């Protein structure tokens, strides 16, 4: 009884700390849970006092379930799950406490039949619960199968989720204690000649090692899910970007339709007042220009349709459209479907994005103002070739260095980033050339 109360106290402290540390739930929820766990300790003691083992466990559970349901007003499943987990905690601490006393404070330890049975029931409860929990995990691993109700349950129970750092610390602590145990028990067994104890200890060690392996496997699975999740999230982001670009394009089209109306009205003015010379000039300057602009935009949209990497597509679209709107002549031809899988999409976008930025910066300051881009596919390679006009001198030996820029201080980072990225990817070749007054960047990506 005494032992039990001590262990319960420990359990309460631990759970209290956990619930304070859990970062996913609201403060009020945390406090309520902390209080409930504390309360559960007393319920456990009371149940033990009133009922004999193993009925006391059941009694404890029932009372806890009802209390939880009343306080938190959730469905039955959540309350049951919460209660089971709390009971689990209590039992684990009971075991640890008993074992600890036996190992380190032998003189306080009196082996009684009750104590023995208590230990046995606790072990049973823990193991059965563990199996049930793992079974639940497996069942709900595939998120698609989970019902709305179950998702809520899982969310509610997130208070039992340890922050990652604490997880590591606890694991290390337990492992150290366990290792000490594993060294001393067999040693003392050998010393006293009690080989049964020795075999038993070895068996436990073996089980522990086996559980470690299972743990690793589970962690691995969790990591995989994390990665999948991150990828999916990235994809969603880029899809959003792309949709935004399309919407912008549609907006532009709307606007130009509106513009046309205005243009017609202004032409009307010129005609009414018979200012035909001015009309001619107006027509050339304003109308033809915007006509070209829209056609050019549409060309880019049509051309980039062949790019299957969505982030790349929207990146190219956005940057080239910007260039056109600033009066740069843009040539673009994409020969075949471009679906690059051998380079991380983020890196690819950084490389192409920086190259495009650099081309834009140079072209806009140049007299000729031209950017020319092609993408093609050869057997097992993709090629992206980007040319831009430039004025003044370009020093190929320095153009890749950080800070080299014709645009003034604090610029010139882009190409050094490209260089660094290309260096990290042995499957990308970058050829640079200055030819016919064009700065040419030609990258080849091995599939």
């Amino acid at each position, binding site marked *: 009884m005494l032992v039990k109360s001590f262990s319960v106290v420990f359990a309460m402290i631990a759970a209290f700390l956990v619930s304070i540390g859990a970062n996913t739930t609201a403060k009020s929820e945390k406090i309520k849970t902390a209080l409930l766990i504390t309360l559960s300790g007393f319920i456990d003691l009371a149940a033990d006092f009133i009922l004999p083992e193993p009925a006391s466990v059941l009694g404890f559970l029932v009372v806890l379930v009802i209390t939880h349901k009343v306080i938190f007003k959730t469905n039955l499943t959540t309350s049951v799950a919460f209660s089971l987990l709390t009971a689990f905690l209590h039992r684990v601490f009971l075991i640890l406490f008993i074992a600890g006393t036996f190992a380190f404070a032998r003189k306080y330890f009196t082996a009684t039949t009750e104590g023995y049975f208590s230990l046995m029931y606790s072990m049973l409860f823990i193991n059965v619960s563990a199996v049930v929990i793992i079974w639940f995990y497996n069942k709900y691993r595939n998120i698609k199968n989970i019902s709305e109700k179950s998702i809520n349950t899982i969310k509610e129970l997130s208070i039992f989720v340890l922050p990652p750092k604490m997880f590591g610390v606890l694991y290390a602590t337990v492992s150290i204690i366990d290792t000490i145990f594993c060294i001393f028990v067999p040693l003392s067994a050998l010393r006293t000649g009690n080989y049964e104890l020795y075999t038993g200890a070895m068996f436990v060690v073996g089980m522990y090692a086996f559980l470690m392996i299972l743990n690793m496997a589970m962690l691995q699975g969790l990591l995989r899910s994390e990665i999948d999740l991150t990828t999916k999230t990235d994809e969603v982001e880029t899809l959003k970007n792309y949709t935004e670009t399309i919407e912008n394009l549609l907006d532009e089209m709307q606007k130009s339709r509106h513009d046309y109306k205005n243009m017609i009205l202004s032409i009307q003015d010129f005609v009414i007042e018979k200012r035909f010379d001015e009309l001619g000039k107006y027509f050339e300057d304003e109308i033809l220009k915007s006509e070209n602009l829209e056609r050019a935009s549409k060309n880019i949209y049509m051309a980039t349709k062949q790019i299957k990497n969505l982030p790349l597509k929207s990146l190219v679209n956005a940057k080239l459209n910007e260039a056109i709107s600033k009066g740069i002549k843009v*040539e673009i*031809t994409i*020969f*075949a479907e471009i679906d690059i899988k051998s380079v991380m999409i983020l890196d690819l976008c950084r490389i192409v994005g920086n190259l495009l930025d650099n081309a834009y910066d140079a072209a806009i300051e140049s007299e000729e103002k*031209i950017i*020319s*881009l*092609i993408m*093609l596919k*050869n*057997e097992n*390679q993709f*090629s992206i*070739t*980007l*040319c831009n006009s430039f004025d003044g001198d370009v*020093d*190929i*030996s*320095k153009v890749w260095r950080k800070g080299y820029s014709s645009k003034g201080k604090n610029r010139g980072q882009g190409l050094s980033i490209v260089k660094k990225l290309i*260096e990290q990817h*042995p499957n990308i*070749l*970058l*050829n*640079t*050339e*200055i*030819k016919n007054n*064009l700065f*040419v960047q*030609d990258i*080849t990506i*091995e599939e």
Partner: protein
Amino acid sequence: MKKLKFNVIICEDVKNTINRISSVVFEYFAESEIEIDCYQLQSDFEKAITFAKNTDGARNIYLLDIDLKDRINGLTLAQKIREYDYLGYIVFITSHTELGMRALSYKLKILDFIDKANANYKSRLLDCFETIVRESAVIKNEDTHIMVKSGSDYFPVILNDIIYIETDSIGRKIIIHTYKRTIESYVPLKEIQNMLDDRFFRCHRAVIVNADKIQKISGDRKNSILELAGGNTCPYSSRKAKELMAFVGKIV
């Protein structure tokens, strides 16, 4: 001196245009000593690619209408031809020059885009032939250049232009530095070294330098840097310092 021979391959749908172009071809080459065979393939892509595959000692000149059937087909044909024939000359004949395609010209090494509707297309075509004949005469001299494979393209690199060649930090590719370009390639450094002549010295595990381009040797132990032409620098191994000096001394 081996006689120059060219195969002129014309891919053009419109009969009228083919005749026009052929007459210009014959007109130019009749006056020269150069032997040519002229093939008029209308839209026979396969035949054109066969020519690309077997050059057979002659140089191919492809006059392609890129508006064959649809634009992308014409461009893809050019791309396929380049895959097999990296030395041949390609001239695009088109009625759309606004998609100027500078990057395209660079990548597929297109000699020129000629607008067939334009009145001076003939003189443009003649200029092209002029350039071709002149260039082939130069390239015949095997000593001055090497062919470097970069990706699936072959680039001719004039030895005289090479300042230095280095490997990247991982060691999987080499980077060739000249005044106006850098070329990356998967050809191993050792293999490239065999293609070079005795101007070149392996001054470092990862660097081959053209001794002609060395402007200054910084003799510091910690800072063994060679200052090279064009504002370039490269490291050299202190173990090779003596050998390097001797090498440079010999050249000078």
